[in-house]
């Protein structure tokens, strides 16, 4: 239970710490929550589900406030804790780190995210899904660019609209099964007529498509990413996005499996359109942050299409790709923010020759570009290889469209890197990376390489929980080949 309560306590404690010590407190707190998560990992056997809060009192309306984790959600918890500590480390030198309000909001955010991944009850999942919306909104509002009211409103309302769709589906499922607990929802033999099942899965799809963002629902994403502060963009792109993908794996498909079959190809087409669409637009973007935002739309479209196939291999490679996308998102947006904080400009045409002035930054930014272009020995290579294989097996044409991400990805990433880094330097000085920035880049690249070389360690960890979901599935039809 400490796993979830700890971030709340830190969030409140952040107000009591004097201004100067807040940034040390932030780092120490994030690392200690990571240590707690690792403690849970130490004696965790991937086979069975561990409950951290399991009140056996029957609550009205079928609500059961169960919390617990299995292989899949523990990986996500570890991802959240490590990414939050990396964000605070990256933020260490900026003046924002001294801000008590900012640190407490980040910890509130972490608590909400942990809640989402640990919830074993439909309503609890939905509650934490909405809770995370508040701190990120406040971070973006107070610490982002000043004139971003309309952008923020669009972001908040967009996500809220989606989550209300999910609420409707949860209500429908929960009340017809008389309980919101995950095990009852998933294994209830309740027969939903196909048409309604399709509507329920559309409710879930609306919420997740807006959050991911899938193709037509993505208009909020680029503008929000550019006006947000660095930590805000990282939280949004590296962690909030994963809530939606995790939600698809754990909640959307198992609960409304019959409904998914009808909209399966819709999502795959949306995903693959997103891949090409994001990549093509990213090619001609001027602002480096919008460029990375569209890049992340393209990366994520692939993952979403992979998840919907719901085969053993596609799910595991989707999880690897999720972790890889978090690493890439944090790395790229960190680099974009370094450029913006040191030169004040984000338009890549105005930048140039930074690699000559700051060779260390040039090297590490190159490393991140290669990780994002998924060169061998990085997690992206394995993830994309397997995902495109699954898509290719599902339908050869979708495979071909998905594989364009390799070529187009190289085009826009290298263009961004080369226009900003190479050529004659256009600015007088650009001081090189400091110790904490190098540490962040090093951590990201090393973890990408480690996962790239031995993805098996994650796959074994996650496999039993996917099989568990499949056995519990309605009708237990064993479709995972």
């Amino acid at each position, binding site marked *: 239970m400490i796993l979830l309560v700890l971030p709340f306590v830190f969030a409140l404690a952040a107000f009591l710490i004097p201004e100067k010590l807040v940034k040390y407190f932030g780092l120490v707190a994030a690392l200690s929550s990571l240590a707690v998560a690792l403690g849970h990992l130490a004696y965790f056997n991937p086979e069975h589900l561990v409950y951290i809060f399991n009140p056996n009192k029957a*609550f*009205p*309306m079928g609500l059961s406030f169960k919390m617990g984790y299995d292989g899949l959600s523990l990986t996500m918890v570890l991802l959240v804790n490590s990414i939050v500590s990396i964000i605070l480390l990256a933020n260490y030198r900026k003046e924002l780190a001294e801000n008590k309000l900012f640190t407490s909001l980040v910890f509130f955010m972490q608590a909400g995210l942990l809640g989402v991944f640990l919830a074993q009850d439909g*309503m609890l999942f*939905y*509650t*934490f*899904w*909405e*809770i995370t*919306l*508040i701190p990120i909104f*406040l971070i973006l*509002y*107070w610490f982002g660019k*000043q004139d971003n*009211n309309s952008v*923020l*409103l669009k972001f*908040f*309302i967009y996500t*809220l*609209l989606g989550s*209300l*769709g999910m*609420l*409707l589906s949860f*209500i*429908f499922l*929960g*009340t017809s099964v008389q309980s919101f607990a995950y095990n009852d929802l998933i294994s209830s033999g309740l027969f939903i007529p196909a048409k309604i099942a399709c509507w329920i899965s559309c409710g879930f799809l609306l919420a997740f498509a807006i959050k991911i963002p899938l193709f037509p629902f993505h208009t909020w994403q680029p503008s929000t990413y550019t006006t947000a502060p660095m930590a805000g963009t990282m939280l949004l792109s590296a962690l909030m996005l994963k809530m939606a993908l995790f939600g698809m794996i754990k909640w959307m498909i198992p609960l409304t499996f019959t409904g998914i079959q009808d909209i399966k190809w819709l999502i795959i087409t949306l995903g693959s359109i997103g891949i090409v669409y994001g990549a093509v637009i990213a090619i001609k973007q001027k602002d480096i942050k919008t460029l990375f935002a569209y890049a992340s739309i393209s990366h994520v479209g692939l993952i979403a299409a992979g998840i919907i196939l719901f085969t053993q291999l596609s799910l595991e490679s989707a999880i690897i790709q999720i972790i890889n996308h978090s690493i890439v998102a944090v790395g790229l947006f960190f680099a974009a923010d370094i450029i913006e904080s040191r030169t004040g400009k984000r338009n890549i045409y105005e930048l140039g020759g930074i690699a000559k002035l700051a060779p260390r930054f040039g090297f590490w930014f190159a490393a991140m570009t290669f990780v994002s272009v998924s060169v061998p020995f990085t997690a992206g290579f394995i993830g994309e290889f397997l995902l495109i294989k699954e898509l290719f097996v599902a339908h050869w044409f979708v495979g071909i469209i998905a594989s364009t991400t390799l070529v187009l990805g190289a085009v826009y990433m290298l263009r961004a890197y080369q226009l900003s880094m190479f050529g004659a330097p256009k600015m007088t000085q650009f001081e090189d990376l400091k110790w904490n920035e190098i540490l962040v880049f090093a951590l990201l690249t090393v973890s990408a390489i480690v996962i790239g070389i031995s993805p098996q360690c994650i796959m074994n960890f996650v496999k039993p929980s996917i099989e568990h979901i499949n056995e519990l599935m309605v009708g237990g039809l064993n479709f995972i080949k």
Partner: protein
Amino acid sequence: MDALIVIFITGLIGLFVGMMKKPVLSLSISVLGLISAFILMLYYKSYESPFGNYNGLNFTPSGNIFALLVIGLTLLIVLSGFNYFKKDIEHTADYYGLILFSLCGALILIGFTNFFMFFLGLEIMSIPVYVLVGIRKQNTLSSEASIKYFFTGSFATGILLFGIALVYGASGTFDLNEISNSVSIWKEAPAMFHVGVLFILAAFLFKVGAVPFHFWSPDVYQGSTDAVMSYMATVVKIAALYSFVTLFGSVLGASGNIYTGILEIVIIASFFLGYVSALKQSNFKRLLAYSGISNTGFALLSVFTGDFGSLWIFLLGYTASTIALMTVSQAIEKIDSEDIKNWKGIGYKNPFIGVVVLISFLSLAGIPPLTGFFGKFLLLSGNYQNHLTLVILALISSVIGAFLYLRFVINVFAKESHAEKICIGPLHITVLIISTFVSIFGWTIILF
């Protein structure tokens, strides 16, 4: 029953004490009276009341919790309004007297068993509020508001009575149980009965402020003072809603197929009209009035299921947030809190107000961890079986509402603004803390 008597007596004493021109004394007397009424109402089952009981009033268990809610809210309103009332010394006692008498009417409305008591309760509740609305004599707006409220109110009473008369004509009795028995007996109810029911429905829709009859509420809310408005927006609305649900939920439920169609249209209209016309509002009170209309639409959802528990939770969330917001607007009286532009940056400069405003608006918008969400969730999950379109439209309208509230919160939290630090009186702080506490943890009541 005894709580009613205690409140009435405190009202009388309060009026007499008022002559001695000591506002604090009248405040303490009314607070004392309210607390003792609260306790009496809490344990009304466990002792034999000295006054004997009168079959015209019986408080069912669900009625009981509503009565507790109403008394609690009046307590909060009385406390938060004290700063304003003590400004003109002679009239502070009048405020308290009128509010307490109106509260008696509200309690009668919560416990009525026949139309006779129902009509009396309604009138006892409404007439003091006509006066309260127009209490600021020299202010033209408040006199105009009280005129509008008086005439629309009495017109609605006329219609109500006409409805009661017709129902009496058809069923021959005023008592609700007998009516419900006769309704269930009739295989095909006489036309007069249905017309009477429709007239009563019309009067109720006026009292509650649903769409075709909602025109009075924005004007009257804007014209009246903050304390009176919070009283009208909470206590009057709760009492009206409760009696609406008892009448149309259970008693006349059998003839339900007639008015469900109409009610659905009314609810959908009040959803959208409330939030949409609030979008362009620049006056804080009118904004709350319009959002009140939509929330009434939401509350009316409980008529179909007749489920008092979910109605209670929803109203708890709604009233807690309204009281909190109105107290904040009273607390920052200095900067003419009626115009929204003056609210800019208040939240950033004094964080306590910021947090209160944030939580109350989020609870109104229905963001999960807060009571507002659970109220809506319970209502929606009760109704999704046979009113699916209604539920979907409710969700869509709550998105517009969320947009509305959020834009306000953004305005309140603006960073660079010339707002300055405001010190809040102790009374206001206590009220704010209680109402925010209720907004956050109010929903845990469903666990016990």
